[in-house]
């Protein structure tokens, strides 16, 4: 069942327009984006339908779908869209909104991965892969995936046991703090 949350009708579409500098009404629902999307088969809803949901004000449906999280950001859709609608960027905005609005994200693993990744940058200024994998595994409790590759990688010098910490670590941390603050004040 769909609940029509049209009371916020303009708000989310507007927020997306603000974040992506484009209007969702551009999309005429041809479906070319979905047709070419490499991860289409894994999504619960076709990418074009997420746009449709936003056009019609079915926000909940859009924000809780797995589709934005499965979107790999490959921009195949944006490149081929006949209306020059940048769907990849639109997906970025939907995810961001889902986080801001505290919607329960279906693809928890993916979210945890992104969080772990950003956490590394926040702390060290750069992605620290061992830490990333460790943090991700702890978060998701997928402790034994990928054991096939990790140890070999350390031997090959591909994974360093200690993170590289950049000098501008504080500057980077600041970026995180400031962008987070901005979100607070906006709400």
């Amino acid at each position: 069942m769909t609940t029509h949350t049209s009371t916020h009708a303009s708000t989310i579409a507007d927020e997306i327009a603000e974040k992506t500098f484009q209007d969702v009404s551009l999309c005429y629902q041809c479906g070319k984006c979905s047709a070419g999307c490499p991860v289409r088969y894994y999504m619960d809803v076709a990418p074009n339908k997420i746009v449709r949901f936003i056009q019609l004000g079915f926000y909940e449906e859009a924000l809780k779908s797995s589709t934005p999280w499965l979107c790999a950001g490959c921009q195949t859709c944006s490149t081929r869209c006949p209306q020059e609608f940048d769907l990849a960027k639109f997906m970025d905005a939907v995810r961001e909104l889902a986080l801001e609005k505290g919607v329960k994200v279906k693809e928890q693993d993916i979210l945890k991965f992104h969080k772990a990744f950003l956490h590394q940058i926040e702390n060290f200024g750069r992605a620290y892969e061992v830490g990333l994998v460790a943090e991700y595994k702890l978060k998701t409790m997928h402790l034994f995936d990928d054991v096939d590759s990790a140890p070999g990688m350390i031997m090959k010098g591909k994974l360093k046991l200690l993170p590289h910490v950049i000098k501008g670590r504080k500057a980077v941390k600041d970026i995180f703090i400031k962008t987070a603050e901005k979100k607070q004040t906006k709400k």
Partner: protein
Amino acid sequence: MENNLKAGYFPGCSQTGTAREYDLSLRSVAEKLGTELTDVDDWNCCGATSAHVTNHTLANALAMRNIVQAEKQGLTEMVAPCAACYNRLIVSQHETQIHPELKKEIEAILDSKIENPVQVMNIVELFTKIGADKVKQAVVKDLKELNAACYYGCLLLRPSDITHFDDAEQPTSMEELIKLTGAKPVEWNFKVECCGAAHSIARKDIVVDLSKKILDDAVAHGANVMVVACPMCHTNLDMRQKAIKKEYPEHKEIPVLYLTELIGLALGMDEKELGINLHTVKFELKKETA
């Protein structure tokens, strides 16, 4: 050699870790071609997919800090060999250029003016800059035994109106480049098909499927090696072949080289020097018989 190129270098996180051989091979090839690479001072991670999929402002700020660092260093050109970094940097640069409010916001966050004069290049553009003639002259080994499927992935070319680099659907610039080494490019279907990119860890299943499809098509069109220009692509196409093999035991393995490695081989460097021995799928050139 005269007219040697000087360019900034933004290694990106992968090159210090999983893609160590990309860094290694790029540095040695550049040196051999008389190109001087200057690392960007104290660069930080561009935020990769994780930043822009979750926080637009953060993504732009992380990327732009690097541009500012490069600016401060007086760099005018800078190569970002990782397609994802390249994409993040060039897109953020573009966005801050066309949206003044965003630029102001980022400047406030970074506490620094953004002048934006640094021209960001991808790896293929770097070689174009160095010059086909120069590369060709330096080739000492004919790689005619290689039938290569050039894989551009998604981020090298897109968004095409920002990258302005090659044809978005049927690119040929990598092919033109490897022809200089004697390697033969194959015509195939998935030059620009996505391999699942950042889902490598969280949704390995997806990456395994997508990568398999891409590799199979290359093999079906007669390739005996794949050439990539991105550490993420390499991870997915090379490292994931183990998992692919597990799921599809009949899978036919195909080695995956970085563009710089392939060129390095043609310039006479050996596999080890280029880090090719670090790959999951083994690759070695046939030993000279003569």
